C-alpha cells in the first residue's frame, strides 16, 4: 500500500471549542507533505491526534493500514511516528546527548542497547544537526534556536518512518534554515515520510510536494505548493477577510 498515514473524519473539541472538524488527509509513503494555516487553525492539534498526545473525539487514524486511534503515544512512536514539539520540551535535567539517548534506548532498540553504541549514534545525529559541541551541555541552558534543533534531533533519534516537524525552523537564520532543509531532504531520500508544519513559506514551498491549508479546524485547500500560494481562500485565511 502506498498510503502511510490516513486521517479519516477526525474531530476534536475542547469544551465548547471545536479545534478540528472532520479532517480528511491521506499521506503517501515517502511523501514530503506541508501543513500550513494561521495560528489557532488546528495544525498542532491535528499533529497531537496523530502522535497520540491527544485522543481524537471522532474519526480514525490509520498508520500503515492499521488503526492506531486507540494506541497510547509511546506505541505509536515505536511503530514509526515521531514528532517535534512546537514549543520545545527538552528533558531539562539531562544533557543534550542524554536527551537523544531516551528515544534511542526506548524506540530504536527496545531498551536493550549497549550504552556505547547508543552514544555513538547520538553523537552522529548531533553532528548532522550542528549541536555536537553542546553534547554535554545541560539542555536547560540552550538557546531557543538550539532547543528547536534538539527537538528535531530527538525526533530523528526515534528512527521514524513518519517524521512530523512542528515549526522546527522558527527563529532560525537563513543559513540554518537551509541546513535543516538539507537534513530533511536527506532523511526523505532515505525513505522517511515527512510532514512539515511551518510559517516560513519559502521553506514549505521549496520542500513540499503537496500542501494542505487548515483554517478553523477545516481543510480549506489542498494541492501543489504553487497552487496553494495563489489560492484566494488561503490568502484570506492568513491576511484576514
Amino acid at each position, binding site marked *: 500500500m502506498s498510503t502511510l498515514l490516513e486521517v479519516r473524519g477526525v474531530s476534536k473539541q475542547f469544551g465548547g471549542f471545536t479545534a478540528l472538524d472532520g479532517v480528511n488527509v491521506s499521506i503517501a509513503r515517502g511523501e514530503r507533505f506541508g501543513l500550513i494555516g494561521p495560528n489557532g487553525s488546528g495544525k498542532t492539534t491535528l499533529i497531537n491526534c496523530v*502522535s*497520540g*498526545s491527544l485522543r481524537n473525539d471522532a474519526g480514525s487514524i490509520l498508520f500503515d493500514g492499521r488503526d492506531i486511534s486507540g494506541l*497510547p*503515544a*509511546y*506505541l505509536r*512512536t*515505536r511503530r514509526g511516528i*515521531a*514528532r517535534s*514539539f512546537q514549543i520545545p*520540551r*527538552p*528533558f*531539562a*535535567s*539531562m544533557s543534550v546527548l*542524554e536527551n537523544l*539517548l*531516551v*528515544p534511542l*534506548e*526506548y*524506540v530504536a532498540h527496545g*531498551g536493550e542497547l549497549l550504552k556505547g553504541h547508543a552514544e555513538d549514534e547520538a553523537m552522529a545525529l548531533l553532528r548532522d544537526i550542528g549541536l555536537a559541541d553542546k553534547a554535554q551541555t545541560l539542555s536547560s541552558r540552550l538557546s531557543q534556536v538550539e532547543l528547536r534543533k534538539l527537538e528535531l534531533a*530527538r*525526533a530523528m*533519534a*526515534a528512527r521514524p518512518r513518519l517524521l512530523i516537524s512542528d515549526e522546527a525552523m522558527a527563529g532560525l537564520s537563513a543559513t540554518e534554515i537551509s541546513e535543516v532543509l538539507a537534513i530533511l531532504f536527506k532523511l526523505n531520500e532515505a525513505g522517511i515520510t515527512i510532514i512539515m508544519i511551518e510559517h516560513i513559506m519559502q521553506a514549505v514551498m521549496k520542500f513540499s510536494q503537496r500542501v494542505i491549508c487548515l483554517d478553523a479546524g477545516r481543510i480549506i485547500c489542498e494541492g501543489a505548493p504553487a497552487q496553494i500560494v495563489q489560492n484566494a481562500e488561503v490568502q484570506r485565511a492568513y491576511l484576514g477577510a
Partner: protein
Amino acid sequence: MKFWIGAAITVVVGVGLPLMPLNEYLFYAGYMVLSFVVLATAWNILGGYAGYVNFGPPAFFGIGAYSAVLLFKWLQAPLVVQIAGAALMGGLLGFGVGLLTLRLRGIFFAIATVAVVFIMETLMVNWRYVGGATGLQILRPPVEVFDTYTRMLFAVMTVMSVAAVAIARYIQVSWIGRGLRALRDSEDAAECSGVPTLKLKLFACAVSGALMAAAGAPMPMYLSFIEPASTFNLSYTIAALGSAIIGGMVHWAGPIIGAILLGTLQQVVTVTISSEINVLVVGVLLVVFVVAAPEGILGLIKKYFPGKK
C-alpha cells in the same frame, strides 16, 4: 565496584556491631534511623526520580507491619517470610493506587495516597484479629544469635538498607531511571520518545511501595506491640519526604544523608525537648529547603564544592 565494597563493609559493620558489648541505646536509635533510610530511599524512587509525590508512607509502612503481624499470628512465620510477605502487599498496594490515579495529574495521586492512609487505618481499627483500636501484644519467640531483639533487628535493618539503596541505585543509573527522569521532565515528550510512561510509573510505584512496606515489617517485632494510630501516623510522611528533599532527590545518596540527619535530629530533640518541637523543626527545614535549596544538601555540595563527587 566501589559501591559494592562500601555495601559489603556496611553489612559487616551492621551485623558485627550488635555482637559487641555496646550501649543498647545505640541499636535502639540506630534501628529507627536505618528504617528512615529505607523509607526515604524507597520514597525517592517515585518522588525524586519520577516526580510523583507520595503522601502515604504510613499506609505502606503500616501494611508492611500488619502483614508481618498477620503472617506471624496466623502461620508463626519467621521474620524473613514476614518481610517478604510485607513487600508483596506493599507492592500490590502501590500498583493498585497507581493504577487508579497515575493517569491523572500528580496532585490527584498525592491526595489518593493520603486517602489510603486513613482507609487502611480505619480498616485496622475495625479488625479484631489484629487487635483493633487498642492494638495487639506480640509474643516474640526467643531471639537467636544476638542478645536482644533490638540488636538483631538492627542487623536486619542494616541489610535491608543496603538492599534498598542498591535497588534505588540500579534504577537510577539504568535505562529505567532515564525513562523516569524523562517522564518527570516532560511526560508528553517522553511518550513521544517511546517511553511507556504509565508502565514505568506503575513500576516505580510498586517497587517504592514494596520497599516501604518491608521497612515496616520488623516494627511489630521491634516493639512487641502494634496499634493503628501510631503505625499510620503522618509523621512518617514528613520523615520520608523530608529526608529525600533535604538530602537531595536526584541521587541515591540524598535520602541516606537526609534520613541520617533527620533520624539523628529526631532522637536528640525528642529526648531533650519534645517530639512536637522535633516535628516543627523538620517541617521548617522542609519548607526552607524546598524554597531555598530545592536540590537538597547534595545540591549545596555540588554548588559550593564543584568537582567533588
